[in-house]
């Protein structure tokens, strides 16, 4: 498996998805099922990517779980994306510092 081909496939597919409709499309999709499907795809993809991978993202399940909990609470209160992202990371970091004192 070649790194160059991986990157070319990745970038090529991503570009074509953006480009083909942008260059060609003039009308709206009519099918209600297809529009609903497309509406839900981002949420389905992001959730499938996040769970359970988030619990393995910091090298420690405990710090990751703490960071995840902070992210969920802040997201629930509609905090901006960037605030949620940085606070979760700060929480995971703080948990990593605190855990040795309890174990």
């Amino acid at each position, binding site marked *: *498996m070649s*790194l160059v081909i*991986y*990157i070319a*496939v*990745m*970038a090529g*597919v*991503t*570009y074509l*998805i*953006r*480009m083909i*409709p*942008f*260059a060609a*499309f003039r009308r*709206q999709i009519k099918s*209600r099922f*297809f*529009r*609903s*499907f*497309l*509406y*839900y*795809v*981002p*949420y*389905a*993809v*992001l*959730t*499938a*990517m*996040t*769970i*359970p*991978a*988030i619990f393995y*993202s*910091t*090298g*420690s399940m405990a710090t*990751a779980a703490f*960071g*995840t909990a902070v*992210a969920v609470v802040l*997201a*629930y209160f509609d905090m901006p*994306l*960037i605030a*949620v*992202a*940085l606070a*979760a990371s*700060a929480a*995971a*970091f703080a948990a*990593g510092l605190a855990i040795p004192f309890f174990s």
Partner: protein
Amino acid sequence: MKSPFVRGLLDGVPIALGYLSVSFGFGILAVRSGLTALTSVIISAVNLTSAGQAAGIAIIAAGGSYIEMALTQLVINLRYGLMSISLSQKLDDTFNTPRRLLVAYGITDEIFAVASAQKGLLTSRYMYGLISISMAGWCAGTLLGASAGQLLPASLTDAMGIVLYAMFIAIVIPPAKKSRGVLAVAVSAAICSMIFKYLLPQVTGGFAIIFSAVIAAVTGALVFPVADEESTEVVSQ
């Protein structure tokens, strides 16, 4: 009166700042999956997408097939196709085919959100400004994150590994509070993804995401079909 390019640059500053910290997380993940800083920045420069890149480096690290890579990018980035359809109806007359081919590269969730919130038609120069500063932030953050592995203590870079995922949570939860459909889709996707991870580990990461996402989104579309007005606002997150 500022030129459209400068207006685009200024409107893109908040996007660039946001990207800086998110792509910092990507840079850390990329280096941890065995890529060099240069490769990480190249991936960021040619893809300009958070979720797709995160899944892509996981496939590279696992030695997945090219088909798996292509299908994963297709499913994860399918939303951009919908944004492109929406934005394509908002372009002014100067948008000839070469300009469309150029600007198509820069359609991301955040750029789409800012561009579609503009009053009136979009000019190509405005889009160049918006995209170029966002891309600069995305690549700079990747470089910083990828280099930070050597500069920062492991406790800090470990904690930064969660940044991208936390951002995904922040994208999904607010609409899931308001829409039972989004909530049902997110819960189904999470359950499917866990089933693949713990019960069917022979299905590799990229395919697990594709199957989980398609099952969840089809379920949502069948059980909670959205009204026409809703689906056009779709992706303004």
